[in-house]
């Protein structure tokens, strides 16, 4: 067993885990952070994307022990004080999800991408999320949502919770 100390969505956790424990399994099984999911075993689908020290990573391809001493943000830690993150809000507004399985990873990939490219073109967005597969949407509304979110973040809009429709 190896010890790991990691801050996830603002909360510090100290655990002993098998060295082979993948970060995504640690999040899901040890911490109950089941919002982050596993979609493949070759790091293609990106469904497991989380932020590690603010940068997007595929948590199926990181060992929990490699995250020792670091900070993880999952889709569950994105909304603040009941207010959706602009990317979450835009995914809702633009109907950028259907079954929703790829959505946590897609949202986290987009958050990290927009930190690097705050004013992306449609083509840059498409390349920016090339590490995430979606089988439902054909990506069109995802690209639109990320573009909208970028605009909202640039203008400093604080997304409002969508009245009665979405509570967090």
């Amino acid at each position, binding site marked *: 067993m190896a010890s790991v100390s990691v801050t996830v969505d603002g909360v510090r956790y100290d655990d002993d885990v*098998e060295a*082979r424990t993948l970060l995504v399994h640690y999040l*899901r099984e040890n911490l109950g*952070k*089941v*919002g*982050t*999911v*596993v*979609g*493949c*075993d*070759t790091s*293609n*689908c990106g*469904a497991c994307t989380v932020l590690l020290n603010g940068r997007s990573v595929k948590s199926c391809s990181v060992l929990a022990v490699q995250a020792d001493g670091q900070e993880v943000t*999952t*889709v*569950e830690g*994105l*909304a603040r004080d009941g207010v*959706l993150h602009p990317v*979450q809000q835009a*995914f*809702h*507004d633009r*109907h950028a*999800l*259907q*079954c*929703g*399985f*790829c*959505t*946590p990873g897609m949202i986290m990939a987009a958050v990290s991408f927009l930190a690097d490219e705050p004013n992306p073109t*449609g083509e840059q*967005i*498409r*390349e920016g*999320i*090339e*590490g*995430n*597969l*979606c*089988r*439902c*949407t*054909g*990506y*069109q*509304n*995802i*690209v639109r949502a990320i573009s909208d979110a970028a605009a909202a973040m640039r203008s400093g809009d604080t997304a409002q919770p*969508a009245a*009665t*429709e*979405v*509570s*967090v």
Partner: protein
Amino acid sequence: MTVTDERPAEVGAPRRRKEDARLITGRTNWTDNIVLPGMHYMAVLRSPVAHARISHIDVSAARSRSGVVDAFTGADIADFQGSLPCAWPVTPDMVHPNRPPLAVDEVRHVGEPVAVVIARSRNAAVDALEAIDVDYEDLPVVLDMEAALAEGADLVHSDKGTNKSYTWIFESGAAGTGASTDEAFAQAEVVVKRRYKQQRLIPSFMEPRSVVVDPTGDVITVWSSTQIPHITRFLMSLLTGTPEHKVRIIAPDVGGGFGGKIGVTAEEMLSFFAARRLGKPVKYTETRSDSLVSAHHGRDQIQDIEIAAKRDGTVLGLRVNLLANMGAYLGLVAPGVPLLGAFMYNAIYKFPAYRFECSGVFTNTTITDAYRGAGRPEATYAIERLMDELAVELGLDPMEVRRRNWIRHEEFPFTTVAGLTYDSGNYEAATDKAMALFGYDALRAEQASRRASGDQVQLGLGISTYTEMCGLAPSRILGALSYGAGGWEHAAVRMLPTGKVEVVTGSSAHGQGHETAWSQIVADQLGVAFEDIEVLHGDTRTSVKGLDTYGSRSLAVGGIALYQACQKVIENAKPVAAHMLECDVNDVEFSNGSFRVRGTPGEGKTLGDCALAVFAAHNLPDGIEPNLDAEAVYDPTNFSFPHGTHLCAVEIDTETGVTKIRKYVAVDDVGRVVNPLIVEGQIHGGVVQGIAQALFEEAVYDGSGNLLTGSFVDYTLPSAADLVEMTTDRTESPAPGHPLGVKGVGEAGAIASTPAVVNAIVDALRPRGVNDVEMPCTPERVWRAANLSGGAQ
């Protein structure tokens, strides 16, 4: 006083989805999230070879591993494991081999389960698989369908004496739906014949399948990532001998299906057996590698198709001869998949004679079964490709050939040569709209100039004017086709005392947005707020009756049941309202959520008022049951027939063979639209799956029957970076015969887009003597066609 509670119609509004709240915040309930006290984990050992006799298998070392509580083989459960079901015996003499959940003596495809381990942790279960000892004696591997049908071929099932499961034939002359096909061909001035190959695809739902079985309560509860909880309950009960009322199936959040989660799976059955053996909850979640080799595949047909026409372009008849790869066994509805296409080869065209013949063939591969469109994409691809070939043969524009043959809008309802009655449509309107959005003439002019200048990048234009049959299905028609179930759907509406509404649907959503669309329908019918409606589905305890989600049926069938249940609620409330309004029940009218005395403006009584009144039941008219709730089952009398025109322009770099989609326009007519956001999303996703068949995806086996595309590294799903923005629009031809006017939209995009793309590719290369490129049209295949074919491929 005037009425002030007029609310805008919900149906037709681009409502953002209710489902999103949990999905964008990670508060989801995927099956793999479920953890129960004392839960065990199952791991499955799969065959690494395509066809072999199991000469020796020993799980004793695995059983003694730390953390392992049980391990068993097919032989251990042979006397009760039974056979996974196939519910569609398309012919009385169909060869239908047993498909045991665990192979007993013989394995017939790579990935077939041969043993399982159950342990206290997932890791222990997976680790112990390595301790299982199996010896395989290789048997001849059957992969090629035509070779499989040849005299003296090696056999997938040696006891059956043949690799052919069935041959199913339709002939319009014999069926009385049209003329004799042979006679029609005898009159032909032009005959064009082609062979098309529908490559094998893998549905690739994003959520790997997962199942949890809890045997510890009074009933056995099964959570499964399935499209079909109700059918699964019925079949699991039959297969396990557990009384149906003692089995509860829950499909919680389900991450996509596309047909791939229709089926009672080996893993569901094995989890059930393991849980029952141990008396403990058991969970199995597949890996993607497991999934790609064990979840059913789709398509995989060889299509020989032949069209007879007059020189003026009038089509006289069509012959289709199909080979359909079943894989090693028969999937739940697999034999019927080509039949769903059989009625669609005539497509939007009128012609007098049609013959269809299909043989199902066994090979040593993963089973095939329904995948988005199931039979209809294959049919649409072949006829839409062939209409282009006919146009070339006749020297006509491909759209002109279509116009000369399609059903005109004033001819609906129209009974086709395949015997179906198309309900409504307007091919002219959809096509005109699509052509205008596309800029067809300007693109043709650009194509001509690129051809003239010998540009390295050539432009091609592809057309697909499709229709499809959805809203599966009238139960009588399914019966006539020997399908093992009906096609009705169920809905229930429960009025809560506070005026809130619970809606129960038998259709089981996994991304389609039922919770939103169903709320919109009910809001309009009952005059309650969208937010005040909760839609319940996917649990056989709350949704007691249903036939689940596939075949673009949820709205077209389940939506009508819901509408009917709403009308019953209103009827139930009417005497209650009349009593409160102190008038005769015949003087009560209901609109905008309120009952009023006819012709009398005023406050009226809402359904909520009535719900509270029956809750208290203190003051109801004599003989009135204190209940507003109602349920309805709707069995459609016909399919519904969406249609549309898709246009695709591709640029082909003739030096590399790379195909780039330059422009894609889809104008779809899916009847009345409940939620345009959801409809557009369905079209986007469907179109991209169809494009992916045209350009990217193929399940490839090597000569030994190993799946070479066994991970997402090699089974190349397109990402956003591989695709471009498309233009979508619609026309609306309401479905007649039921009050909502809706059709179906789940499969339309995937049915339409594949031939549009391939027609465009072939069009670009036509001057180079190319008349086909096999799918997927990879850069290499396109490059070869463009540079090496020296004529027809």
